[in-house]
């Protein structure tokens, strides 16, 4: 379908895919090919996407190749010291310019006809300069690699093709106040613990996308095995009473979301220490990723309001619309102590029925090396490919997608009708939408509303 016809189709279709009144989404949205093409155009070519961290490319010329939707981009540090994001498509004959997925290069030279580009994407020239093989219709300035707009936030590299859209700050809105507690809380910031895990999941990207927006409810059943082996705060036979990690505060804004959960209600190691005041708790259980040594830095970098949130119930899981999943969680470490795992996933679509699940692990730069190694092992043990928590998620999403193949199956709906409603506690900052209590569907529905807004923005 041509672009305009697709956009016309969208006007008709969105009301059938999303029932705003009853808070339901048609299962057909997990299957529809027309809708998928529109998502690439209206979401993945418009949204701010997290595509890496600057510590992956510390030196001039360092690069990684990443995905923005189905488009490959070169993420490189150029001679100006800045991070540039350029489409990995030669403007000459559409060959991929960069064939490795990471490395260091002062010049990216296309292997097909030799057109050469700097790490900032600008065109150097084609071989046999005097023959001017780029012709004389377009100037060299017009023949650089297509550039995405880039912003760094806590070292995370965000890029978008929407050059005239909102800034990243505007995009994050009120939620930035909370994201700062994860990404911008220490003097030196985060660093990656290696190149990301990558794998393909046979599922529509939205199955993982909407789950990242605070689906706490699935913990009790899908991750029941983790409760059973005693790693979490509850016990198998009392899970429905103790409901580990279920009571907390969910936050939502612009489709972004976070779940804030006190340590003592989610992890066995912290159990029974719930009588502390918020200030004592901040000392006893610094937020995930903050070692006791880093606590003074945290206190310096955060406002009193932010510190109160961190002490009462730090943000630990959630997402950033449209396709980032966050787990900054407490986790037992190899040496028996209560440590943490800092994990970000990106969910990149690969056709309507597949996505790439990319997993990054982090630590604060000031963390001792041996602790970083334990954090990496803890993250690998809990999350990503072999994670005892997340391997069950990767089993669920393909089933949902398969359900959408049936002509009857796709007439079913995803339902977001368990509503807590905004109910901000008096001592909680007046930022974003706040839902206190047993985590329900509020934030996930907000994810779909953001999806709906972006999909229909140009229609």
């Amino acid at each position, binding site marked *: 379908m041509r672009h305009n016809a697709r956009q016309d189709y969208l006007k008709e279709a969105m009301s059938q895919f999303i029932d705003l009144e009853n808070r339901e989404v048609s299962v057909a949205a997990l299957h529809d090919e027309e809708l998928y093409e529109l998502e690439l155009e209206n979401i993945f070519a418009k949204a701010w996407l997290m595509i890496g961290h600057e510590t*992956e490319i510390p030196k001039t010329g360092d690069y990684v190749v990443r995905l923005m939707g189905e488009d490959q981009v070169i993420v490189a540090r150029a001679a100006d010291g800045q991070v540039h994001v350029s489409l990995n498509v030669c403007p000459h004959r559409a060959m991929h310019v960069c*064939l*490795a*997925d*990471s*490395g260091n290069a002062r010049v990216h030279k296309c292997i097909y006809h030799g057109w050469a580009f700097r790490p900032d994407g600008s065109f150097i020239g084609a071989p046999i300069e005097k023959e001017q093989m780029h012709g004389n219709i377009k100037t060299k300035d017009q023949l650089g690699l297509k550039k995405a707009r880039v912003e760094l936030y806590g070292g995370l590299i965000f890029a978008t093709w929407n050059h005239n859209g909102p800034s990243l700050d505007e995009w994050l809105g009120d939620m930035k106040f909370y994201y700062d507690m994860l990404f911008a809380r220490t003097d030196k910031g985060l*660093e*990656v*613990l*290696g*190149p*990301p*895990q*990558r*794998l*393909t*999941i*046979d599922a529509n990207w939205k199955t993982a996308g909407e789950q990242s927006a605070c689906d706490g409810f699935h913990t009790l*059943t*899908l991750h*029941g*095995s*983790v409760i*059973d*082996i005693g*790693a979490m705060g509850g016990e198998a036979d009392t899970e429905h009473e103790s409901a580990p990690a279920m009571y907390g505060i969910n936050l939502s804004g612009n489709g972004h979301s976070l779940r804030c959960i006190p340590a003592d209600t989610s992890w066995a190691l912290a159990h029974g220490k719930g009588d502390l005041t918020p200030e004592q708790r901040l000392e006893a259980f610094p937020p995930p990723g903050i070692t006791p040594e880093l606590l003074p830095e945290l206190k310096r970098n955060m406002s009193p309001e932010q510190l109160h949130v961190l002490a009462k119930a730090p943000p630990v899981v959630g997402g950033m619309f449209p396709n980032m999943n966050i787990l900054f969680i407490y986790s037992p470490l*190899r040496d028996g102590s209560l440590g943490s795992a800092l994990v970000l996933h990106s969910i990149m679509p690969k056709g309507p029925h597949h996505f*790439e*699940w990319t997993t990054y*692990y982090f*630590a604060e730069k000031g963390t001792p*090396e041996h602790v*970083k190694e334990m954090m*990496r*092992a803890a993250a*690998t*043990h809990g999350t*990503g*490919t*072999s994670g*005892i928590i*997340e*391997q*069950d998620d*990767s*089993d*669920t999403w*393909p089933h949902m997608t398969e359900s959408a193949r049936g002509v009857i199956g796709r007439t079913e709906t995803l339902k977001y009708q368990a509503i807590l409603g905004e109910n901000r506690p008096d001592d909680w900052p007046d930022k974003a939408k706040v839902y206190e209590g047993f985590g329900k569907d509020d934030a996930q529905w907000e994810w779909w509303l953001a999806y709906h807004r972006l999909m229909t923005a140009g229609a």
Partner: protein
Amino acid sequence: MSLTVATSTLTREEDRREEVAYGSPVHNSIMGFLIKEARLLDHRQLKAWGDLLAEDLIYKAPVRITRRVQGFADEFGTMGHFDDDYNSMMVRLTRLTTTDNAWSEDPASRVRRFITNVTVWETDQPDEYEVLSYLFLTRNRAEARDYKQLSAERHDRLRMTKDGFRLARRSILLDQVVLGMPNFAIFL
């Protein structure tokens, strides 16, 4: 912290001494161990497989990176798909064998592990061997028409004890950069 691990720290070529002849009693007994291990895993006898692990186990499957051809020494990341020791492996096995809601393998996949190209070297320890083997693995689940496949080489440290060989180290060098299977709820 560096982002890649030198390939040599995974292959441990410097630990290899005299190569053990193919068909010799030691080579045969190691081949027998690898076959037994594959059989136990394929038949989901996970507890029995766990008994073959040494308590100082290191079990890693680093992520693979596509590099220019000169870059083999940097093809593996510090991050991995597995980054385990004995205790963390026991937690995995406990989850899979003692709970009735480890959904990633319930219903279970049907897995076959084909082990070939086995090379054995003596080491400085008289009862320990460095072992390189190729792994080809097929995994089928539910009604899937297609198989998920995986190929890798494994660099193992095997230790002979009074109860037979024990696996003390396994570095799994995968051939896929982007894995085609959705998880490693199985062992390699």
